[in-house]
């Protein structure tokens, strides 16, 4: 298709502007600020309308951007063009909102109009607005040599700012990485982790549910354990009572034994006592009586002795031996006394001359000996006095005899009353004393036993008698066993109660855990869905990339070679495009990447690429090309070459070439 003419009534800064277009190259040399971009957008808006009404930014919102200043009413104009041999006019006006816009398509030949033409540009060019603008519109940045010579990148960069040339590669790589996080080899990844989490959560719920199922049996076990421990407690108490009772019985038994023993002993003693009493006529003399007779016996013996000694003294007093004995006695006393005095003197002398100690000892012996002699002689003197005295009492021998007889008479009566045989008084008295002594001992013993009996406090008890059969050791053993069992059961009860509390606690949380299981299931499904989406996205992106490559490789190859030959004048096939749309150049010595070539060559190659793309993409109708001062940075030599290229290309496409400097016109 080709543009014929346009009229801008009002659009941006343009007012009442007309232009007729040539078929090939149309050069617009205007100063900056003229409205070259405005005219470009006007032409675009005639085919595609105004865009981004919802954008708030004036730069993005075309309607706001190109609404003429201080203009009321609609703005726009018309554009005449030729399409498939027929001339048409688009009349378009734009209001404040899309709803106020109007479109009229007029067949300039027939006059037929159509006001309901949606998306006119897409229908004419077979490409959307963004595609059109990205291919048919060149600026100086489109001519810059790029590092990436892949045509795929070119496709990807068609839509300008939003897409980085490497976006497909990056997108695919990102998706690959993301997909791996969901599912990796070795059972790892988010999905597997979530499955594990679900498994654990289910296990937890199952465990709790099993525990909860057992709660009633646990309760029953606790109840029966409580009954069991209660019974055990009662049994233990009963056993303790029995043991206490049996203990008491044992004590009582012991008491009884003691009681019997003591009773037996006391009986024996009483019998002995009776026997003893009977041996002396049933009458035991009192102590006073006994003492009186004993004293009398002593007196009797004295009297008897006196009587005998007086007799002997009388005899002795008449004897001359008595006088010799007396003289001999006095001489002995004198000698002993002399020896003592001598010892005393020697001792003193020794003590004060040679040996004090020895002297002291000798004098001490002498002294003591003197004292002994004195005492001996005094005693003998006394005896003599007594003899002398007795000698004077030789008048009373018959008195003593009479006294003796009296005593004897008493004694005889006494012993007779006791049933003793007539024998030596001493023997009888001794016998009597022994009997009385024994008797008294018996009495004391009996008293003692009676005291013990009263202290014993034994009470006759038939019950205790009957229960004497308890075996205390057996009872204690049984109690010990019960206690062990009780401890065991109470421990078990305590454990069961703790377990019950844990189950109760778990039961309370069961619904939360079940909730969590449901949540995890949902999360797992969400992860699976996400994984599926990512996988599908990955698949379709790769597919799309492959489709583009397949669809455009050959056509691009042909177009690129065509435009390359146009630009360079070389006819042989110089350009190769591989499966990934990477471009290389055939040289005599092999193929080379574009990177090896000069900047100038690369710039020209960018132009080739763009025209090749235009040719490939615009399948229905050849578009017009808008060049918005693309060579502004070129040096003179390159500029000349570029202008030559444009001239050559203008034989293939209608080109609107905007410049602001004469040199580039």
């Amino acid at each position, binding site marked *: 298709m080709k543009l014929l003419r346009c009229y801008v009534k009002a659009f941006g800064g343009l007012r009442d502007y007309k232009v007729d277009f040539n078929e090939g190259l149309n050069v617009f040399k205007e100063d900056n600020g003229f409205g070259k971009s405005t005219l470009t957008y006007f032409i675009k808006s005639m085919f595609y309308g105004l865009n981004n009404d919802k954008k708030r930014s004036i730069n993005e919102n075309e309607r706001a951007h190109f609404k003429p200043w201080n203009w009321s009413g609609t703005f726009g104009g018309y554009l005449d063009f030729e399409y498939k041999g027929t001339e048409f006019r688009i009349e378009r006006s734009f209001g404040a909102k899309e709803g106020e816009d109007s479109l009229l398509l007029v067949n300039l030949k027939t006059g037929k109009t159509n006001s309901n033409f949606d998306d006119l540009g*897409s229908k004419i060019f*077979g490409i959307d607005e963004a595609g059109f603008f990205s291919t048919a519109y060149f600026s100086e940045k489109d001519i810059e040599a790029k590092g990436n010579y892949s045509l795929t990148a070119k496709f990807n960069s068609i*839509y300008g700012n939003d*897409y980085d040339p490497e976006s497909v590669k990056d*997108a695919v790589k990102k998706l690959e990485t993301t997909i791996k996080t969901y599912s990796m080899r070795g059972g790892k990844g988010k999905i597997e982790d979530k499955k594990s989490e679900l498994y654990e959560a289910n296990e937890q719920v199952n465990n709790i549910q099993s525990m909860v199922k057992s709660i009633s049996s646990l309760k029953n076990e606790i109840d029966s354990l409580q009954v069991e421990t209660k019974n055990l407690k009662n049994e233990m108490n009963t056993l303790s009572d029995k043991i206490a009772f049996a203990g008491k019985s044992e004590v009582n038994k012991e008491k009884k034994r003691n009681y019997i023993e003591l009773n037996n002993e006391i009986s024996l003693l009483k019998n002995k006592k009776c026997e003893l009493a009977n041996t002396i006529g049933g009458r035991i003399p009192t102590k006073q009586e006994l003492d009186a007779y004993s004293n009398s016996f002593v007196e009797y013996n004295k009297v008897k002795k006196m009587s005998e000694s007086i007799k002997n003294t009388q005899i002795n007093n008449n004897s001359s031996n008595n006088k010799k004995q007396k003289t001999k006695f006095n001489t002995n006393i004198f000698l002993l006394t002399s020896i003592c005095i001598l010892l005393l003197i020697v001792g003193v002398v020794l003590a004060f001359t040679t040996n004090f100690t020895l002297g002291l000892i000798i004098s001490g012996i002498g002294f003591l000996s003197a004292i002994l002699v004195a005492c001996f002689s005094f005693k003998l003197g006394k005896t003599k006095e007594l003899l002398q005295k007795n000698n004077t009492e030789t008048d009373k021998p018959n008195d003593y005899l009479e006294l003796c007889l009296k005593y004897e008479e008493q004694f005889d009566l006494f012993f007779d009353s006791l049933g003793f045989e007539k024998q030596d008084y001493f023997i009888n008295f001794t016998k009597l004393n022994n009997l009385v002594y024994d008797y008294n001992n018996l009495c004391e013993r009996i008293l003692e036993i009676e005291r013990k009996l009263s202290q014993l406090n034994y009470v006759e008890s038939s019950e205790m008698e009957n229960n004497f059969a308890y075996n205390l050791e057996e009872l204690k053993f049984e109690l010990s066993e019960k206690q062990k069992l009780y401890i065991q059961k109470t421990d078990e009860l305590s454990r069961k109660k703790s377990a019950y509390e844990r189950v109760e606690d778990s*039961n309370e949380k069961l619904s939360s855990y079940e909730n969590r299981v449901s*949540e995890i299931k949902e999360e797992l499904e969400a992860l699976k869905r996400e994984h599926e*989406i990512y996988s599908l996205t990955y698949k379709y992106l790769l597919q799309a990339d492959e489709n*583009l490559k397949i669809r455009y490789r050959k056509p691009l190859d042909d177009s690129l070679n065509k435009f390359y030959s146009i630009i360079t004048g070389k006819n042989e096939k110089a350009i190769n495009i591989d499966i990934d749309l990477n471009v290389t150049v055939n040289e005599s010595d092999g193929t080379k990447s574009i990177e090896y070539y000069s900047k100038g060559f690369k710039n020209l190659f960018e132009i080739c690429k763009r025209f090749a793309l235009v040719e490939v993409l615009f399948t229905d109708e050849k578009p017009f090309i808008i060049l918005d001062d693309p060579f502004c940075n070129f040096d003179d030599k390159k500029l000349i070459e570029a202008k030559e290229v444009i001239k050559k290309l203008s034989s293939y496409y209608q080109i609107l070439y905007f410049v602001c400097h004469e040199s580039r016109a």
Partner: protein
Amino acid sequence: MKFIHCADIHLGSAIESLPSNISYKRRTEIRNTFEKLCEFAYSNDVTAIIIAGDLFDSEKVTNFTINNFLHIVSKYPKIDFLYLQGNHDPQILFESNLTNLKFFGGSWTSFNYGNVNIVGAKIIENNSEMLAASLKLKESDKNIVVLHGQIAGYKSTEKSEIISLPFFKEKNIDYLALGHYHSFDEGKIDNRGKYAYSGCLDGRGFDELGDKGFVLIEVEDSLKYEFKSFSSRNFYDFSFDLTEYTNFFTMCDDIVKFLKEKCSYTSLIKLTLKGEYDADFDIDIKELKAILNDAFYFVKIIDNTSMKIEKDYSLDKSIRGEFISEVLSSKLSEDVKKQVIMCGIRALKGENI
């Protein structure tokens, strides 16, 4: 004399409609709300608390929940708790030696407080007609009747016993304290009496929207009652159309502002997003969820939006156009197509996917 009429407390409820961590907290909050109700009753000299059914949530109520309830009751020995079993309560009554906890039975059970007579019975197998026939109340008394069930004509999502209101006319009822319906509602029985559903004390899900609480009944010369909002948190359900939006963060700000105008930060909110958006409009639902859950206690987002695929993408010669055309021409479901396209566009733009 004052009485409280409450019902449908559902202690120990699992609350499956919320995430597990929120539902666990909510269960505790509901228990606490009941205890706060008792504290309110104590502070306001309430004579008795009437529990018109569904005190618990399930036949298999745990001992923990029962013991907790009994513990609360035991703390307020001067307040009577009059308990009527509902369809969710365990049918076998638990043991209790608390003298202030009293039970209504299968036939009319009456508790008297001066001239105030509180009578209740369990409706079993639609015996409301029979029950009504056997109900004898003195005209001179102030009569409060307690039942649990659904008044004929009310919508209910679950099976319940039906209460035929006409049978209870001219029975000298001053106030019919009902349980089962989870929102406060009231109506007239006859010229003398009114009925009221107290509603549940505290909501448990997004099907229990609006204010929840109890009814405070005051009896002096006449009987008056008033609904008291008492829930710890409210549930809300909103929808939001994002069709006009082209900037995600502007949309987030507007949503937050919209929600803050209608509910407090302690609320539980269900937000349904609807509308269409362009392929170039980045919507990050996770990010939105994070923003909203930071501003409110809990927000659940339902995404009912759809991407606008108006253009003929065969005219888009780029990889994007090729990709979208490839997906659209596939046999995938519409929903999956939408998601794949969104994901692919974001990936090509280098955005987070």
